[in-house]
């Protein structure tokens, strides 16, 4: 059977394929120790991590904007 790191790496790439970036980032996190010296994998991991952070930030800003819109009509 695959070791946990290899399994996580497979799951991460499959998650990327289905554009589930949050899951991909989580799985990459588990696989990271196995790929310490692999530049290509590290680059993909890092880009995924940053993308998830950007999405999180955007979601927070969007929910803030909705709250402002809801507040305005009621003063």
């Amino acid at each position, binding site marked *: *059977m*695959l070791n946990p790191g290899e*399994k996580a*790496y*497979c*799951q991460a*790439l*499959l998650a*990327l*394929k289905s*554009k589930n*970036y949050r899951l991909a980032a989580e799985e990459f996190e588990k696989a990271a120790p196995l*790929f310490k*010296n*692999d*530049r*290509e*994998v590290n680059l*993909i991991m890092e*880009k*995924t991590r*940053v*993308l998830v952070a*950007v*999405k999180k*930030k*955007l979601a927070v*800003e969007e929910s803030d904007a909705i709250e402002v819109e809801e507040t305005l009509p009621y003063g």
Partner: protein
Amino acid sequence: MKTDFSLRSLEGLLEAFLERMVHLKHRRLGVLGGINRLDDIARYTDSNEITDEVGDWFAVHNRWLTESVLKPADIDRIGKMLGEINGHISAGSGSSPATRKVVQEIDRWQKKTGRIRGKLVLKRGSESVEKSDNSDTISLFGSSLEFSSALFADLSGGKKHLLSVLDDSLKSAVVQKNKQALLLSAYLIYYLKLNGYIVDPFVKRLKAAERLHKEGNTAHA
């Protein structure tokens, strides 16, 4: 608002990069997906469920045997998993036609990929002079080149320079007494020499690896 715009464009950029990567590696992702699925199956405990799922797996992935998409490490991983699955099935209850079919498929896969299961019996027949056939040497060399190419793909993953690949290849030739690694090392050394690199230390290591390989062969004879 400006931050929002910057974040949106960064999001688009990163998504485009990752989508392109997925597109470029779609074949490799297909292989990893298949290996991952087989690993899931190997973790099942119900032998009937395993039989059904492996049957489906073979239906989808048997084409890998003819498409040469697998790296040597993939073949090794799949072989080990199929071995474990075979163990589960054999330990399960009874022998249905479906089970027998799956076991046959596993055997066929292992034989085609060079992983023959079961007891290995070494016999030595009478000595004879090897016949050399031109067509055989050509196909044998062709297979050897293919194998070297796959080995190179495996060893070069994540490396920054060809010298690092050569270093790993020589280590593999010494530690594992791997003949293909020995051939690949020789090829890399000559390539680097023609491109102006100092290769003397590597030639010494190659000769040492070659000696070990010969000694190994003599010991087995």
